[in-house]
């Protein structure tokens, strides 16, 4: 199968799941579409490497995560605000419940890109810590730290009373 044909087949099979990952990382549909497109455009010139991977979709997802992290870093201050962050009033409105998934979604957007990526890879893709570490280019302890701190940050903001945590940020 030619690169073009295999690429087309891959897109048909996996574009939706890649979009899903990109959406969880970026928070908006346009940004997610751009991220998937940018990643595939970067990988297509070396498509044979993608095909040689044991799990091509995992390879592409890994690249997508790197493009997400590196791309945002490269664009620096020109980033658009992708997430609709919660304000103080909104946080108070959901103080009694940590099951408000819209609020959790907003809190996810308030984390650093690396924390968000680690949490998406762990809790959505059920990736092992070592695989997340490989994807993010850090050691496993750093992955655990990213997730621990990210989850703790979300818990802290989710409620001023839940689990003995204080509300607000110091």
């Amino acid at each position, binding site marked *: 199968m030619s690169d073009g044909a295999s690429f087309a087949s891959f897109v048909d099979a996996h574009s939706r799941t890649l979009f899903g990952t990109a959406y969880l990382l970026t928070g908006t549909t346009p940004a997610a579409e751009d991220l998937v497109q940018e990643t595939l455009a970067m990988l297509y010139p070396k498509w044979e490497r993608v095909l040689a991977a044991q799990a091509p979709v995992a390879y592409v997802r890994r690249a997508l995560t790197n493009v997400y992290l590196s791309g945002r870093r490269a664009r620096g201050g020109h980033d658009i605000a992708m997430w609709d962050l919660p304000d103080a009033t909104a946080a108070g409105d959901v103080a009694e419940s940590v099951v408000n998934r819209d609020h959790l979604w907003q809190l996810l957007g308030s984390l650093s890109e690396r924390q968000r990526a680690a949490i998406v890879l762990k809790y959505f893709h059920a990736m092992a810590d070592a*695989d997340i570490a490989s994807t993010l280019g850090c050691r496993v302890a750093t992955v655990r730290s990213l997730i621990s701190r990210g989850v703790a940050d979300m818990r802290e903001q989710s409620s001023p009373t839940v689990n003995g945590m204080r509300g607000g940020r110091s």
Partner: protein
Amino acid sequence: MNDVQNFEDEIQAMLADKERAASPAADFVERLQAVPTTRKPRTAHRVDLRSLPRWTPPLLVAAAVAVVAIIGLAITSSPSAHERPGKSNSPIPPKISTPGYFATGVQFRDAQHGYAIGNVPCATALHYCATLLRTDNGGATWTKLSLPSGLRPADDQGVEGGASCTSQGRYYGPCVDQVLFADADHGYVWSNHSFYSSNDGGQTWHDGKASYVRDLVLVGNDVVRVRELAACSTCPSTIERSRVGTTSWSDVTPVKTGIVNARLVGAGPNVEVDFLNASIDDPQLDKANWVFYRSTDGGGSWLKIDPGCHGDVADISGGFDGSLAASCGGAADTTVRVLASGTAHFGPAHPAPRVTQGGSGSAPANPYTRSARIIARSASDLLAFAQPNTLAETAPWTEFESTDGGATWNLVGGIAPWTPIDAITGYQLGPFGTYFPLDPNAFTSLRITTDAGRTFKTYSFAIQ
């Protein structure tokens, strides 16, 4: 603690909900299909290692023995990604239907004697069988050892991420994915699900009835392990010690409260541990710092140590002579510091090796070097691994060696891309080092170097 687990469950459910609810524009696939019309295939970019900066002229050093296991398996038949059979109580079928072995853990006691834990394809409903192997000739050939009956295969193959021995894995149930033998008789196999020990070279196994064991290292005649109290990312950890050959464990945790995400670092005559000094209910957990403690008596007493990094510590490693090397990973501090044996403070900071090559297609390389692993073989003899922070994922880790405590660095070679850098595990066998990059995605063999990474010899897991 249940609240923490519930909160993590809620995050998982939220992500699934949001992903399901999101949908791309109608022309999304069409736009992706147009990518080849604007980007033509070309030969894959390869980094020329010879062009990497040389920090000093190469030095000839005594040959170090290192074994690099890059393991994987081209799996052609696997259960569906969501297959989760119920618990099986049947013995492990030894029949191997096709060649090939996928290891999730490898350990060498010395350059000749090693162990691998992993899966072989077999004719069972799960397609794979958990298998423990031993080599007595440096990896050239392997023989099978027994494992406790009823174990499921480890699921750490990198397919859809993998999730070895967790409730999110494909083969959820009792399984092991790590191995450590103190000597020919006394060994341990474990995962975050199960923990077993053997006193007869792996013929029979004792169920230690412990879960969530993160790390296990040999310290003299003892083994020291990190165990978490439950399955969550912020659950507290304990440090426990056991005399090799016994099955009892004593708590040697250096800090009785507020120890999260503990990890054993270093594997010399001492034991070092790092952890977040915070409680899971601490509102400042997200701002907690990593702290390091060292014990020179197998966990009987501990001394807090401070490498003095400005920012995070990327890695810390204990040398065979009792020295300690730290790699600082902060944005403004990428230095290496060494604490010599018998001293209380780290020496001067030296710049860590850096690589700036990389980039792919239209994406330029970023000169920032990712935080790297450091392995101390002694106070003067160090190995460091660095990776250019490219926009793609294909940049190889590059190995550097120092014989003067990090003051100067010599390029050794390139560790293959896709190598989880944390899987490069330092072993201190006298003045020699051993390390193992594991790559479930791209490699199907065991690669061995006897010259600290300059050259490699490839072996398959040839099971006798």
